[in-house]
């Protein structure tokens, strides 16, 4: 079986599908970050804004991926664009929820102290709130990234390409080696994403917080 799976990876169409999958996931994630982060920043100080953002985020997480894919179709037709729009919509909620919550969870005492020291709003954001919220924000991005890599398999149904093509082909042709090759590739991509973004998260956690985390505070 392992040999047969490797033979699937040697197929001339495999690199293209892998690339489509990576491109789709990456693009969706980047656009989602570009939308969710500014929104989270804008509403960081208003309780109503935060509540709305969290609720939209939670609803977004509950909607089945396939449903959103189907909704994108009438607008953009079959192909990459529809898949991208749908995946972006799915990638936003975890980032929005985490960024919004992370920024608001920064201790009021710390912000008061900063204000007392004479820092402006913008300085408080860039020097206090963002660094403290960074681990939570990156955790949201990491969650979103892994979820997006997995959800990108659904693009196959609307002509978006990707590794889902192999999974469906394997299922239709009753060729378990094709199906497993596709599924395995997605799993490996997801693991790489998880580990990679985990490292990114650690890199962006301020040193002081790392020490505090180690000490269990």
């Amino acid at each position, binding site marked *: 079986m392992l040999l047969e799976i490797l033979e699937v990876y040697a197929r001339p169409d495999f690199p293209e599908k892998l690339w489509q999958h990576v491109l789709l996931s990456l693009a969706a994630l980047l656009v989602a970050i570009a939308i969710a982060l500014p929104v989270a920043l804008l509403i960081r100080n208003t309780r109503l804004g935060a509540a709305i953002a969290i609720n939209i985020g939670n609803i977004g997480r509950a909607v089945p991926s396939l449903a959103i894919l189907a909704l994108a*179709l009438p607008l953009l037709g*079959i192909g990459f664009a529809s898949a991208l729009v749908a995946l972006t919509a799915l990638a936003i909620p975890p980032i929005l929820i985490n960024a919004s919550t992370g920024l608001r969870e920064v201790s009021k005492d710390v912000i008061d102290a900063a204000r007392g020291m004479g820092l402006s709003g913008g300085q408080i954001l860039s020097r206090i709130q963002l660094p403290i919220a960074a681990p939570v924000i990156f955790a949201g991005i990491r969650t979103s990234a892994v979820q997006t890599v997995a959800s990108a398999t659904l693009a196959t*149904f609307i002509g978006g390409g990707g590794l889902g093509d192999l999974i469906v082909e394997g299922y239709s042709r009753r060729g378990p080696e094709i199906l497993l090759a596709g599924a395995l590739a997605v799993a490996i991509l997801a693991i790489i994403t998880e580990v990679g973004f985990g490292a990114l998260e650690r890199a962006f956690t301020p040193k002081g917080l790392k020490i505090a985390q180690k000490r269990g505070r």
Partner: protein
Amino acid sequence: MKNRTKLIRAVPALLTVLSLLFVVACGNVGGTDSSGGGGGPTITVGSKNFTEQYILGNMYVQALDANGFNGVAKLDLGSEQIADKALQNGQIDLYPEYTGTALVAIVPYKGNPADLNSPKATYEAAKKGYAERSPADTMLEPAPFNNTYGIFVRKSVAEKNGLTNMDELAQASKNLTFISYSEFQNRSDGYPNMQKNYPALDFKEIKIVNELGLRYSGLESGEGDVGVGFTTDGQLTSDQLVVMKDPKSIWPFYYPAPVVRSDVLKKHPKIEKVLNEVSASLDVATMRELNGQVDLDQEDPEDVAREHLEEEGIVE
């Protein structure tokens, strides 16, 4: 006191779980079972797991019911392998199979079924293959239509380029977009088979969309010019799609016929006449129409089958 409260709370919960398990256990397991209204000897009819099979299976059951048998439906069994296994070990007495499929996947056949150049030759080869098995089966007269791969073109494109068959399509293909799916593109008797036989084939773009409804709607909306499906797909009743003729006959003929266990047929020879009547009442246009009623209009295959048989006067 606390323990008694827990016990009292546990009872309704336990009852709920037990009744759910009971319902699930009694529910349909692996197939749609229903018993016909007729008296007489029981004949169990099976089917594979797609719309045309549900319709044919229901027709066989209803026709048998109307002719002194007690037709029992065990439809939606699965692939041809599963249906055939059920047939051979007596769980069903008959089911609808395609002549080409029998040669490709069921009976031992040396040679390429696509090389048989007539529906009759395909049927005779399949019939012979079935008769030589143990236990033997009899493949009755096929219905007079072919359910094979169909390559179709949007009407406006076909008219503009004067396309009526696959040769002409291949010549024009470099300006056209083909909407296909992964299985067809990669199986040796699919797209590679087309390219081998019509070497001029060279589509400008091939879009892979793994969802049948979307492929058809993609064509409708002009996101593609050429599509692939089965010749009896309900969507092909549309006058906006033109099916290309296949002069080289690159695919086997797939004519549907009831395959009956020979011992059952010997015991009840009347089955042959009853089912032949059903088969003779069908043609490709009718089958598309019936498939469309189920797939596009969401009607029940049992009702669609009954309406057709009533119209044909096979049942009251």
